[in-house]
């Protein structure tokens, strides 16, 4: 249940953001992280960004993730 996945922020309105997770666009809350801008990567858990990530680190995790052939589903996201 403590899965979290890197996502790229595509839109921000207050603490509400849209993020791109492996090509899927989802709403996310930014209330737990500071100074996030459009284009930044964040780590998403249960609808909330829990950490800002360096782009290189996010891409590395995503690459490892895809290597595993992990399918994106509700289970992965929660």
């Amino acid at each position: 249940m403590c899965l979290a996945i890197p996502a790229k922020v595509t839109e921000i309105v207050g603490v509400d953001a849209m993020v791109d997770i492996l090509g899927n666009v989802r709403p996310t809350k930014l209330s737990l992280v500071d100074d996030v801008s459009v284009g930044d990567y964040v780590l998403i858990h249960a609808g909330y960004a829990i950490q800002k990530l360096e782009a290189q680190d996010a891409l590395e995790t995503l690459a490892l993730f895809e290597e595993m052939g992990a399918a994106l589903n509700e289970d992965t996201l929660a």
Partner: protein
Amino acid sequence: MKTRSPDEFLQTIHTLAVKIGRRVRLMEVCGTHTTAIARAGLRSTLPESIELVSGPGCPVCVTAQREIERMLLLARRSNVIICTFGDMIRVPGVDSSLEQERSRGADIRVVYSPDDAMHIAEEKTEKEIVFLAVGFETTAPGIAATVLEAVEKKIKNFSLFVSHKLITPAMEAVLHGGASIDGFITPGHVSVVLGSNEFTPLAEKFTIPCVATGFEPSDVLEGIAMLLEAIAEKRCGSFIQYVRAVKPDGNPRAREILFRVYEITDAEWRGLGIIPQSGLRLKKEFSSLDAIERFSLPQIPPVELSDCLCGDVLKGNIHPNECPLFGQACTPRTPVGPCMVSSEGACAARYKYGG
């Protein structure tokens, strides 16, 4: 830059195992690690002397049976909609489950985020929406933020059934319980919030290493290699393998929001009993959002599921396949206990992937 090849980490692990020259037991306390280790079949690649054991890291699994029974009482109220993360709904109660209550007409919805539950409350103003607030320090801050938003928006028909757990006191309870553990693979995403510093006092008190580890096979192998290196050099402390996301101080903002809403309290765990200061409850100023108070839910006496050895699995005393029901009476289709229900439960992971 460090190499990330799983084979090289494995080679290091085998060399270190020889150097250490005795049996080593490493415990993971995160359901996501349990699944990752089983899915990648890592156990069979390790030297025989290195044993990986699952601890109390699956939030659904560690929820005490009487908490489950109280959730079922709530679900039977006609004006209540229960919102929950998915794994909870199949957990067996003594004579029912949320899934069974749903088939009898209860309104129970699986949500991805606490925020989704709050939106249902905004839409269904004639109903009471209760969110089952289960999870460790990774999950609690987001739920706390939802509570703050619900208060700000003056949403009156939203409340929480709080059953959060804190991981560090449980790790300590496992060690106090006498389980022989030489090192902890500490949960990566709990560490994102808490920071690796959180585990330093425990590491020093019990003179063992802890390594905050990521979730890909190469992450887990590197984490194990780091633990073995520390054991070989007789070093204790809290270290970070998952540098991509974990900082020594974690995410202070998430913790600040968490403790604006919740305070630490004693909590009952499946298998481990009541552990002092190991859970969360809503602070007094938010007590109107406490479903237990709102619906005057009764205390119920302790209950145990007969024959299920989840408690021993969660303490690291036995591996799932040592339970006589494993794979016989108890399978993911006919789960007897929560460790077989949750996709992250140690029994389910072992059943699905073997090893």
